């Protein structure tokens, strides 16, 4: 099968991909003609062709199981195989969300224990498992902030402060809750600039949201002062928990002064990323925000479990109770970890990032030369001066069979290479990556053409993105029919 084939190319009238039962009841009367569909053009593919087609496509992909995947802020840690097996148990996967609570006590208990575990790890008071992705949890958090201030009659607090190193989802979520964004600058150490915060933190500000450690992989030692300043002036401190992996078993966000935080179970709690989801983005809250959490939460009373709605809840944010299938995997992971294991995870994650930092520092510009946490951000500035962009470095890494770091983010570092090795990588893997990056730095100086033309041995080479944008082709049509 040629690899540029699409489903219509392997379709022929009369082929089928599976068998179905025949009708075992008498046919009912036909529905009114005007409701019926005239034609349905879908591919007709045999099972064997279909399996070969998708298997061939899977081989064009690179996942954590293929190799090192140091995508910064994405925490691409290994996903234990047995978690997949337990999530598929039919006593979980076949449950219908409308079954009465007494029929699903096992599922509710699992959710309740996961809530408790996440509440404890973050040092907060309650957790809602409903948000299905990080950005979804972030939006829920901002809805909570808005509801909190409205509840207290503070209608004028319509601004959310965030840092210039924040994730793109942060300002986008602010826009979705009808608020304005204010950007607090970073100082020359990469931390939040207190003077900038001091000048912006007025009675129009509803909250400051921070990623801790930041997207620069740095922990801000002034966190207590920041929290105090925000709280003194009537604001809330919100957390983007994308980088929780660095704090597991070390420090609690609640004790650091955060009022709420959204987590990413597909990052920190090891559930697979699925090529872009499903994720799970629980939101944890301190006492002042507990009653605003998205509904429902699971409550326990004398060993029986039921759904409850917080009294001032922002309401429903999804059809049902969150991505339960992801929760099962996160629960399996969480229950494999006691206090010591939690700590070892963050220790090894931080150790790995600092090891990469020290080993690669001579070859790549390090904008913030200090101890980092779970990720390290280099700049391709030196190479850029020789005409080699960070994109070229990333593409050249693909030739080595390695996935590149996150590139061109955070925005405050030029030519950024945001590298998060995670704790699941061995020293040998890190050394392999370091050797590749050294060679690439050498080639950038002496043989830049090999970087400009990279990658060379991937299924396709550099793709014409501008062309894709100019001449939009976002679907096929059967039989070449055009609308």
């Amino acid at each position, binding site marked *: 099968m040629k690899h540029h084939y699409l489903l219509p190319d392997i*379709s022929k009238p009369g082929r*089928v*991909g599976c068998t*179905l039962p025949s*009708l075992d009841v008498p046919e009912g009367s036909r529905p009114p003609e005007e409701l*019926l*569909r005239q034609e*349905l*053009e879908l591919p*007709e*593919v045999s099972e064997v062709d279909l399996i070969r087609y998708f298997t061939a*496509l899977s081989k*064009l*992909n690179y996942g*954590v*199981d293929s190799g090192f*995947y140091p*995508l910064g802020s994405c925490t691409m840690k290994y*996903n234990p195989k047995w978690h997949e097996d*337990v999530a598929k148990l*039919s006593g979980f996967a*076949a449950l219908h969300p*409308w*079954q009465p609570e007494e029929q*699903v006590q*096992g599922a509710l208990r699992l959710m309740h224990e996961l809530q408790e575990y996440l509440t*404890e790890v973050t040092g907060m008071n309650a957790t809602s498992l409903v948000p*299905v992705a990080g950005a979804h949890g972030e939006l829920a958090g901002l809805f909570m902030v808005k509801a909190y201030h409205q509840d207290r009659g503070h209608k004028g607090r319509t601004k959310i402060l965030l840092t210039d190193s924040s994730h*793109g*989802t942060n300002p*986008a979520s602010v*826009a979705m809750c009808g608020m304005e*964004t204010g950007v607090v600058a970073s100082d020359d150490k990469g931390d939040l600039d207190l003077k900038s915060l001091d000048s912006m933190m007025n009675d129009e500000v509803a909250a400051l949201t921070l990623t801790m450690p930041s997207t620069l992989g740095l922990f801000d*030692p002034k966190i*207590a002062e920041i929290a105090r300043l925000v709280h003194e002036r009537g604001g809330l401190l919100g957390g983007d928990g994308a980088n929780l992996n660095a704090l597991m078993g*070390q*420090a*609690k966000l609640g004790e650091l002064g955060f009022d709420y935080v959204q987590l990413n179970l597909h990052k920190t709690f090891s559930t697979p990323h699925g*090529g872009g*989801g499903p994720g799970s983005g629980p939101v944890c809250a301190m006492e002042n925000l507990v009653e605003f959490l998205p509904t429902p939460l699971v409550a326990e009373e004398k060993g029986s479990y039921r759904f409850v709605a917080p009294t001032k809840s*922002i*309401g*429903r944010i999804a059809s*049902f109770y969150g*991505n*339960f299938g992801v929760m099962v995997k996160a629960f399996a992971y969480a229950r494999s970890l*006691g206090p010591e294991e939690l700590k070892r995870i963050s220790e090894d994650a*931080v150790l790995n990032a*600092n*090891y990469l930092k020290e080993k690669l520092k001579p070859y790549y510009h390090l904008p913030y030369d200090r101890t980092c946490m779970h990720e390290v951000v280099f700049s391709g500035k030196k190479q850029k001066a020789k005409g080699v962009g960070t994109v070229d470095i990333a593409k050249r890494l693909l030739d080595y069979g390695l996935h*590149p770091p996150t590139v061109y983010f955070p925005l405050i570092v030029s030519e950024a290479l945001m590298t998060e090795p995670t704790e699941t990588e*061995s020293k040998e893997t890190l050394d392999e990556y370091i050797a590749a990056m050294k060679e690439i730095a050498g080639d950038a100086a002496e043989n830049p053409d090999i970087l400009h033309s990279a990658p060379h041995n*991937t299924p396709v080479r550099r*793709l014409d993105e501008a*062309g*894709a*944008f100019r001449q*939009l082709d*976002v679907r*096929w049509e059967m039989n070449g029919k055009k609308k």
Partner: protein
Amino acid sequence: MPLPYLPHTDADRREMLREIGVSSVEELFEDIPREFRNARFSVPAPLSELELKKELRRLANSNTNPDDYACFLGAGSYRHFIPSTVDHIIGRSEFYTAYTPYQAEVSQGTLQTVYEYQSLVCQLTGMEVSNAGMYDGSTSAAEAAMMACNMTGRSKVAVVATVHPTYRDVLHTYCRGKDLALVTLDAESGDLPPDCACLIIQQPNFFGYFEEMDARVQKAHDGGALVVAIVDPTSLGMFRPPGDYGVDITVGEAQPLGTPTNFGGPYLGIFACRKEYIRRMPGRIVGKTVDVDGRPGYVMTLVTREQYIRRERATSNICTSESLMALAATVYLATLGKAGLRQVAELCYHKAHYAADAISKLKGYSLAFDRPFFKEFAVNCPVPPSQVNKALLDQRIIGGLDISHLVDNSVLLCVTEMNTRQEIDRLVKTLGSL
């Protein structure tokens, strides 16, 4: 307990610390003020794989498993046959352990399957363009409302009362969050208040019956509003697609396409619209292009709509979505194909009508709505639905959803190809005995 996914030996750790130039790992955490570093983590002692598998199997088995019962629940989550091809393909770890295809050269598997998904959704809905998928049907509907407000510059959203109640709850949350007005329209009234950004209508609706679409679409358009239709993708194997009746944005729950009911998630939101609106659409879109050697390939396109480029000016904040479920839907639709999807829809239709006919002939029971329906129908019962469902459970039947708060003494029953004639006959017999 040593963990199989922490590969460092103590010797590795020592050597790495030496290379870093610190004497202990604690030194690496010194930016965290000392007062916060004594946090106690009161979590249970860790368990091994064997112990946890047992514990999880025990929890799973303690639930009432619909696979061991006859189940007639629907209302936004549907039990359909999933061919084994789906699980085997989405279970390939090249797909499920990858992330968002930021590096297109090593993500062609994900990117090409998204292109297939977008194409199949368009074929199915009759819409011109589709994105790569949203969280679920309800958030797709909320995002469609936001998009309609952005496009029309209006701040009022109209939703018909027959739309799924939890979808209306989610719409309410999003609208309140963004300071938009949400107006609920009477089931039978076709009139839209002035200055609405959009009309949101479900086909078939929450109660299972078909709405009269053409006139309502016309009226909404006359008032300058867009029309957002919420559809059940399985129904489109047999019934008119929204592209045929002039809908501007089509959304819906794609869970029925190859994803189990999963106690409510993960699911997948369909989002498709007219081509001219593509630049206002939320979520990822994959486009076809060529590489430097002229070979065909796929990339994420129109990325300037997305949050990591445009930040607060993005069309949505969505980033991680439900990519693997979109792959499941792709494999499902490709496996069933033209004939299979039609057959599934027809099985649902005829079995549901067989059940409805028999139940409506029982003394004390009647259909709550005398309208054409697909696979769901509301039934008025002679006794409270809670009592009905209790009696059914004794016969190993999970009954319909109790909707007494919406329609007096009624349950919403759903019949799909999963329900055999024997199951339906058992349901009817038990109902008749009450």
